């Protein structure tokens, strides 16, 4: 190739690359001006789990329940009639695992019921339903999958808290939790007598499990924790009020856990007799070799 041809080739290549960059940039800017994205882990103080992890290092059921009890008691709205709390019912109508293999979806159907008398008093457009799905050790939710705008545009906010390291096996990881915020305004305004329903589809991935003789490990996922939060005008300033179903109401909900069977490396059971036999055979062979060398 002559120098002139080489220079012309380089020039054309540069032109092609510049055109490529320019057209791509124009198109992408146009495309992204019209798409929406799910915000995750945004404003401080907005997520309940963020507050939890500011006080605790890892997720434990007992610590979480203590924390929630404290949160509810400290968020009692001053000057708001107590009968508001009685009117709110959040329950899980259905909980199931959809799909096969290591990547599945946790499908939950949540019913919100509010006493008719309470509805007119609620600032519906400032209310949201908060669902906290605590995950066991063996599974995790991929924060990047939750950012997919195609799937999660119905939610105001979604975030994952806790151990979000995607690579660790379950025996080296900690638990995590996913918090959903769903705008409840429309649903409250047009609520029927039997309440309104929200459907959640949470993508989950299985971690590598501890070894097991059966070759499988079973992981159980329980019901999510649910509450409603409304921003109310208090006497002096705006405040957030949390509403949760009374404990005795939770017992009425349907099946509490779903089980996920995940493949695990097979642990070979120890056989002392076999080990002893192997040892004596090896011992015998070594002795014979030594005798053969010495003779």
């Amino acid at each position: 190739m002559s120098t002139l041809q080489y220079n012309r080739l380089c020039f054309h290549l540069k032109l092609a690359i510049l055109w490529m960059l320019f057209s791509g940039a124009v198109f992408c800017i146009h495309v992204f001006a019209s798409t929406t994205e799910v915000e995750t882990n945004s404003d401080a103080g907005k997520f309940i789990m963020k507050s939890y992890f500011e006080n605790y290092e890892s997720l434990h059921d007992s610590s979480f329940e203590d924390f929630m009890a404290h949160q509810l008691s400290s968020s009692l709205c001053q000057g708001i009639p107590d009968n508001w709390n009685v009117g709110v019912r959040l329950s899980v109508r259905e909980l199931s695992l959809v799909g096969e293999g290591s990547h599945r979806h946790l499908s939950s159907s949540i019913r919100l019921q509010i006493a008719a008398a309470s509805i007119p008093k609620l600032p519906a457009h400032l209310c949201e339903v908060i669902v906290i799905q605590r995950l066991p050790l063996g599974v995790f939710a991929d924060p990047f999958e939750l950012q997919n705008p195609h799937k999660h545009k119905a939610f105001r906010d979604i975030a994952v808290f806790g151990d979000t390291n995607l690579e660790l096996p379950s025996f080296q990881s900690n638990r995590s939790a996913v918090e959903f915020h769903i705008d409840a305004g429309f649903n409250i305004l047009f609520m029927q007598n039997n309440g309104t329903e929200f459907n959640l589809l949470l993508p989950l991935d299985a971690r590598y499990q501890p070894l097991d003789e059966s070759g499988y490990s079973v992981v159980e996922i329980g019901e999510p924790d649910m509450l409603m939060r409304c921003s109310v005008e208090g006497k002096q300033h705006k405040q957030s009020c949390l509403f949760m179903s009374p404990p005795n109401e939770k017992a009425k909900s349907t099946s509490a856990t779903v089980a996920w069977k995940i493949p695990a490396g097979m642990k070979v059971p120890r056989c002392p007799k076999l080990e002893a036999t192997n040892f004596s055979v090896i011992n015998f062979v070594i002795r014979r070799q030594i005798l053969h060398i010495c003779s």
Partner: protein
Amino acid sequence: MISLKPRSILLISAIFRVGLILFGEWQDTHVEVRYTDVDYLVFSDAASLMASGQSPYKRTTYRYSPLLAFLLIPNSFTSRCWGKFLFSASDLFVGLFIRIILKQRKVPDDLCTYSMLIWLFNPFTFTIGTRGNCEPIVCAMILWIIICLNNGNVVQAAFWYGLIVHFRIYPIIYALPIIIFLDPCFFRSGTKPLLSDWTSDQGKARQINSELTDKCVVCDALKSTFTRSRILFGLISGTVFLLCTGFFFRLYGWEFLHEALLYHLTRTDPRHNFSIYFYHIYLNYERELSVLEKLISFLPQFIVQLVLILCFAKDLVFCFFVQTVAFVAFNKVITAQYFVWFFCLLPLILPWSNMKLKWKGLCCILLWMGAQTHWLLWGYLLEFKGKNVFLQLWMASLLFLAANTFILIVLIRHHNYGPVFRQHTDLKTTKTT
């Protein structure tokens, strides 16, 4: 015979890649399964953090040099496709560099064109860049180093080599062959080394060069190992590497060292991958591996690399290729993106191979793809159907290693080996014969 001009090939490749990138953006927005690689999201997030003055290592699983995040900073304020365009442009440069390297050795035009097409229209390679994987940058830099060495430009080659080792650790395996390649018989101060040309009669070329090679090995051993070009290469590449590493260590501390360097040197992944070691690592992940176990996984890699270097260092490109194939095949972790490391070198060795596509070449391709597909089948059953097929998957890894080894041996046996350079006295030798 193909009559496409190189600029037409590059232009069509560029348009094709733009189309793929735009299609990828559409797919990400409208279809459940993303086109974009997860790694690209990692790079972009790290770049955003860097743009806002924070450490890119705040982004979990970002295990690259801060240079990569720096290159992708425009993702934050122009378009998030910037990185993909950058990687695809590097992809095109690889195609151009393949042609330049082959023309340096006076390979005929039709073979150059085929070699360019093998890279530019390989489905594996054009999806890598357009999905947002950074390997094309690495490939482009490696080929540029080869161009510099072929031109006798040791200083520039050393600079880029130091940079690429900082960027991506694996090119460190090329250090010894480069040092051997900087033979004082060919690299003399004040004179540009003479490249040996591609000839259709490869046998004749081998005979002449092998005589000279024997003489030069003796000459080299008798005189000195530490020649000017070797010392220069070592000093410059080492300085560049240490400067880059030291600078980023100053900025980001131990987190940078752990994530960008030490992680890759000590990486063991219990999750299923093509490597034969994955199942052993998983079964023993809860305990520390013994020294013997670590040695067993390291020794085959080390021995194979040493043998290949000592046999083929004079034919630098071929040495790089076989080293890379062996390095990937014997590594403790193998992912599909590692294949790009030797795909960019394959078009450079094919003009010197006497293996015909029909049918030996085709058999090798089918064997490699077949072994990979076989592994993927068991991987699919494990990951997407939830079946316990760990043992079968491990057996498929063994088969994949066997296939890689077999193909490597076949390629070596069909390669017309010859040193890249010839001595200036060659001219007198060829005139008298």
